[in-house]
């Protein structure tokens, strides 16, 4: 009889401690997973920003370099394709092509000193360059977040909690194989 109470006490304490640890791990997994989701939508935000900048750029260039119609049209077409892409593979290819057309456009703009001096054009050029950077960094952050999260779902003892509550691993953002080839601007 004398042993029963301390034993019960010990068991209760053990249960409380384990519960606290499990809750701690669970919350950590939730935090890491939310970070991954947030990072993913951040990439999208930056991609949208790039699409939004392009019409303004095209109009500005048209004002000074109207007979570069062909280059301008390629940019618009590439943008529309990227916006309408259905699969991740399509999106990757379209994004790559869009980057290529923009490069051509800025190369062509070099021949127009008036255009290069235009504040609006300079602003757009800076904004586009900045957005490209942000796209790259948001992908980097997404991958970093995925790594943290995946590692936690795999390591002991958090893997036990992850398994019990359905925390599954996430995929990394990878440049598709097609996009690694040199850019071919074709429609």
């Amino acid at each position: 009889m004398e042993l029963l109470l301390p034993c019960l006490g010990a068991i209760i304490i053990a249960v409380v401690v384990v519960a606290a640890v499990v809750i701690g791990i669970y919350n950590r997994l939730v935090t890491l997973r939310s970070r991954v989701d947030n990072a993913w939508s951040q990439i999208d935000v930056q991609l949208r920003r790039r699409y939004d900048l392009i019409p303004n750029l095209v109009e500005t260039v048209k004002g000074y370099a109207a007979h570069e119609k062909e280059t301008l049209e390629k940019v618009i077409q590439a943008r529309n394709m990227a916006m309408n892409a259905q699969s991740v593979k399509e999106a990757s290819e379209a994004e790559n092509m869009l980057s290529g057309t923009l490069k051509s456009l800025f190369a062509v703009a070099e021949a127009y000193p008036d255009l290069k001096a235009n504040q609006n054009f300079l602003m757009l050029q800076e904004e586009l360059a900045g957005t490209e950077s942000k796209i790259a960094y948001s992908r980097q952050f997404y991958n970093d977040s995925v790594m943290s999260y995946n590692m936690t779902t795999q390591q002991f003892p958090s893997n036990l909690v992850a398994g019990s509550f359905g925390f599954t691993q996430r995929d990394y953002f990878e440049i598709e194989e097609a996009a690694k080839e040199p850019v071919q601007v074709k429609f």
Partner: protein
Amino acid sequence: MSDEHANFYDQMNANRVKTVLLMTVFALLVLLVGYVAGRMTGIGWWGLVIAGVVAIVMSWGSYWWSDSLVLAMSGARPADKELGPMDAYIINTVEGLSIAAGMPMPMPYVVDDPAPNAFATGRDPEHAAIAVTTGLLDKLDRQELEGVIAHELSHVRNRDTLVTTVAVVLAGTIVLLSDFMRSWFRFGWMFGGGDDDSDSGGGNAIWLLIGLALAILAPLAALLIQMAVSRKREYLADANGALLTRYPEGLASALRKIAGDPTPLRSANKATASLWIYNPLKDHKGVMNSLFETHPPIEERIARLQAM
């Protein structure tokens, strides 16, 4: 990329631990000096209490207002996209790297000065500011600028502004108390006020001597600790920044350019010198100076970056 990322968070935790350790040691030093001062002047434990209160109040004050004060002293103005592509350049760079770091974006500021330099300030990542000179924006390319901004962002994330501000205030308190104690040693003991706890006249004299020794050594110790910590934080910010951009050469190249630029920084003064990425008041004379440098030698910083 394997376990570097885990080490990133480990490093941040280690920083927090070291920060707490540093502040504790410093606080103890302040309390010690305060206690001895109290013994010297015969007010006993009140010395410790007063020292403690002064240190806390001054720490809190400078922590809270450090950013506005520093920004005002350097003549910094907030960056604004309305003002043109140059402002957009710095805003986009800070934003991009904040995204990479997964932290709130510090407010970008511009200092109108041809000398290339930059600093970060602010009490925590939610209330931070990063300032760059127009000279920096002109002279660095995109990757070099990203290296510099990543370094500054790391300072913000490591809460270095908190650490250095508190360190400066605590060191200042020690210096104040030490000055007071030295004056007391010269003149004050004549006014009596013996230690009420002591039962012999000789007891007070011992405290006077201890007080004098401490008054000479403590400020020196405080300064050395402060400088050593500052250098360590600079290396850490270099490393964390390089990790962020995944391109250490960017910052290395930027440091080379900044160090090689002879233009003096107009808004530099002794109070703010330690905050800039490259010490604008750099004095090249002597070995003793290296102990009192807030920044590690530039060649060593570049070498470490290139070794990554």
